[in-house]
């Protein structure tokens, strides 16, 4: 029996881990997450939001374990096999889930999601996501502390098993993997539950809060079509689910799509592009399918980007250094109609004609989209079927996605841009 270690993190307090997990946490690939901030340059809006993926990953492991333990308590005879038929099965599945939760973000590049626009193409012609980088790093760089670890041998858990839980899909989908996968990457997953509370805590905003204890108390798993399973909430978890979705919605409006944060995202993307061009002669993250590519990728983190920002003479780096970022000259309502879009087009046309540099950003392209309420289900006791939340919640039935657009210009051009705006929008 190994030792139990603890580390104290904001939001959850003491998080426990064992010797095996400590060896994984101490691995350089995981330690790199100390150098990747969770919210990129959001500290230009909320100075406290300088927390890292390292802290978040520990939090996700903690929440995932609590969700799994709750599922084990809330099982019916029909769903008992989903979390594991025997005590040993349950122990293995719990550990597998903890490791997958712990490692889910190791593939993040500098600026977290911000780096993904520079990801190379996959075989199907679409850009790789950070999950693809995580898969490659877990399999190729961390096998020594997973598959080849003595504790790993005991529980027969391999790096490949962990990779399976990130939608790799090369093995059979069973009710067990389907449930575990949903807890790591689903609508009611440990990742969202942790980052909402954590981001709200570090930003110092009150609206990212929701009743995690109630969610944990009411979470359950049911058999779905074929051999798969569905994570949902008991009917008495309805209001805590409403809270969770509203919290996500408010965080999107107040933090993730805040105008200054969006402006900083534009500058930081330009800086990352410059860093990649300087290092690799092209604005592209290294290919994670090669050994050289993985090593090059691991050499990139927020520290290397900050150094580039500190040294660079480019205007975008200067804007970040001096907190003189793009200014928002125009924005549509959160749910614009066609007239608002026509206005926007007229404005960008005249900015073009007057040679005023601008950027138009849209909420629909953000990495941090709010949760779709229609994808979260509660159990209907009368019909013994899952029902989508909006069918039971009048509040969520009217919660449409945000479709806002914003136009930004350099501070020096703000007056000219406002004048242009006044000339076309009466």
């Amino acid at each position, binding site marked *: 029996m190994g030792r139990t270690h603890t580390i104290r993190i904001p939001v959850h307090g003491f998080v426990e881990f064992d010797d095996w997990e400590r060896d994984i946490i101490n691995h350089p690939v995981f330690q790199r997450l100390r150098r990747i901030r969770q919210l990129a340059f959001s500290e230009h809006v909320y100075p406290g939001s300088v927390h890292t993926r390292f802290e978040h990953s520990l939090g996700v492991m903690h929440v995932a374990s609590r969700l799994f333990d709750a599922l084990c308590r809330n099982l019916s005879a029909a769903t008992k096999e989903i979390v594991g038929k025997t005590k040993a099965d349950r122990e293995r599945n719990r550990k597998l889930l903890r490791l997958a939760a712990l490692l889910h973000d190791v593939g993040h590049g500098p600026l977290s999601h911000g780096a993904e626009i520079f990801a190379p193409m996959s075989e199907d012609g*679409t850009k790789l996501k950070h*999950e693809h980088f995580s898969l490659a790093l877990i399999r190729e760089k961390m096998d020594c502390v997973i598959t080849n670890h003595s504790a790993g041998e005991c529980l027969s858990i391999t790096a490949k098993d962990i990779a399976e839980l990130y939608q*790799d899909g090369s093995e059979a989908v069973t009710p067990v993997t389907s449930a575990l996968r949903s807890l790591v990457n689903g609508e009611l997953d440990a990742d969202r539950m942790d980052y909402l509370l954590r981001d709200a805590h570090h930003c110092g905003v009150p609206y990212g809060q929701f009743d995690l204890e109630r969610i944990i108390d009411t979470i359950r798993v049911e058999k779905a079509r074929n051999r*798969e399973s569905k994570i949902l909430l008991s009917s008495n978890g309805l209001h805590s689910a409403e809270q969770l979705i509203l919290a996500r919605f408010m965080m999107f409006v107040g933090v993730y799509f805040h105008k200054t944060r969006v402006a900083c995202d534009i500058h930081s993307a330009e800086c990352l592009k410059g860093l990649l061009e300087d290092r690799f002669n092209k604005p592209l993250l290294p290919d994670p399918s090669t050994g050289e590519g993985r090593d090059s990728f691991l050499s990139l983190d927020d520290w290397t980007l900050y150094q580039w920002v500190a040294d660079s003479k480019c205007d975008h780096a200067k804007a970040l250094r001096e907190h003189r970022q793009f200014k928002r000259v125009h924005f549509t309502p959160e749910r614009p109609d066609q007239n608002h879009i026509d206005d926007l087009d007229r404005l960008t046309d005249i900015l073009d004609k007057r040679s005023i540099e601008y950027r138009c950003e849209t909420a629909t392209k953000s990495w941090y989209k709010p949760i779709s309420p229609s994808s979260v289900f509660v159990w209907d006791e009368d019909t013994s079927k899952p029902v989508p939340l909006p069918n039971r919640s009048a509040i969520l039935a009217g919660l449409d996605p945000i*479709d806002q657009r914003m136009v930004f210009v350099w501070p020096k051009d703000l007056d000219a841009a406002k004048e242009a705006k006044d000339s076309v929008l009466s």
Partner: protein
Amino acid sequence: MDLTDKRIAVLAELARQYHGDGKARFGNTAAVKMCYFLQNVYGVDLNYRFSIYTYGPFDQEILFTKDLAKARGILDIKYVNGNGDNYGYDIKPATSPKWPVADLNAKEKIAIKAAVATFSHGDTKDLELWSTVCFVYREFGESGDSLPKVVQRVKQIKPHFSENQIQKAIDFLQTEGVFIKLLTHAA
């Protein structure tokens, strides 16, 4: 054309064409799988990033696009709670959209028509199997022994389908010329 507008236009056109005799309900699974076929078999550039998930290839962005289309009054979406397994979403074109739907080009319209003609008679289970077979087939590409490998691999990923069902799905996709189109657009 803005990518989001195009994605919405494709969903709206699918919803319009999907209703009629012999066609299954156009629900979430059908929306996701038809987008998969359009992108990978018919070469319509939707820039979705599919990975194998519950019920086959999936991208969460498709469900977001669906919600956005509903918010713009372009799609009318209801949850059907019928008997047995007959429950899920029913997606239809709205009668009076609040936003104009973007114009798709002739090639895209033809692709949607062809995809609906080929796949809309399938239920969710058929769509899951056909799209999974396509997903796996792309991994192996065109080689003499790729089809037996596809059967094994699909059976491995989706053990609830029998080898006979998988073989029938392969036969159907071959007859419809889907594999050739898949490789054309994978290049």
